């Protein structure tokens, strides 16, 4: 049973560029959430996708956008990259309706913006 998989594992970009991160949820899960984790901090909620729609969004600018595909996989897009966007980007999946918010996380994509 594959867990949450993310790609790429590491990425280096320069300011102003755009980036796309990818996530495949745990088998049987239908909901995908994205979190940003700065060094030494806890993860911060970016948004959640369910039924191919953004269901809830955290306090992140419109430069951060996403998509969910019919197979439940998801992408996170960040435009006009800033130095401050350097962080570990975590994807988490869950099964809607199971109660609680028990998320299963991938290992993340480490994004460095130079």
């Amino acid at each position, binding site marked *: 049973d594959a867990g*949450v998989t993310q790609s790429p594992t590491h990425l280096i970009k320069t300011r102003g560029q755009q980036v796309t991160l990818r996530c495949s949820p745990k088998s049987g899960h239908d909901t995908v*959430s994205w979190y940003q984790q700065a060094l*030494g*901090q*806890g*993860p*911060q*909620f970016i948004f*959640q996708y369910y039924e191919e729609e953004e*269901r*809830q969004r*955290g306090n992140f600018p419109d430069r951060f956008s996403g998509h969910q595909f019919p197979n439940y996989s998801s992408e996170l897009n960040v435009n006009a990259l800033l130095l401050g966007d350097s962080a570990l980007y*975590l994807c*988490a999946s869950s099964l809607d309706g199971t109660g*609680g*918010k*028990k*998320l*299963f*996380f*991938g*290992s*993340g994509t480490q994004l460095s913006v130079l």
Partner: protein
Amino acid sequence: GENVGLHLPTLSVQEGDNSIINCAYSNSASDYFIWYKQESGKGPQFIIDIRSNMDKRQGQRVTVLLNKTVKHLSLQIAATQPGDSAVYFCAENQGGSEKLVFGKGTKLTVNP
């Protein structure tokens, strides 16, 4: 506003001792709490969760205690092992919201 914090940023224990990691939360509307373990270079790994209608829940070598009166959560690890060394995060969720709000984390170091 929402805030989940930890009393101690670091904790060092001897192998075989019991560890207690504490967490305070400020959102009295939170009704679900969860502990994660994060090892270097990995994503957070689920440890144990608890709903607000409970005050204690036990897992394998771990126990979570919830005190709603003082808005405090703790994670107890019995017979701590070197493999338990990691950063531990508590997170809370308010019913109706999809997001987990994480604290900054406590780094647990287990000395052999």
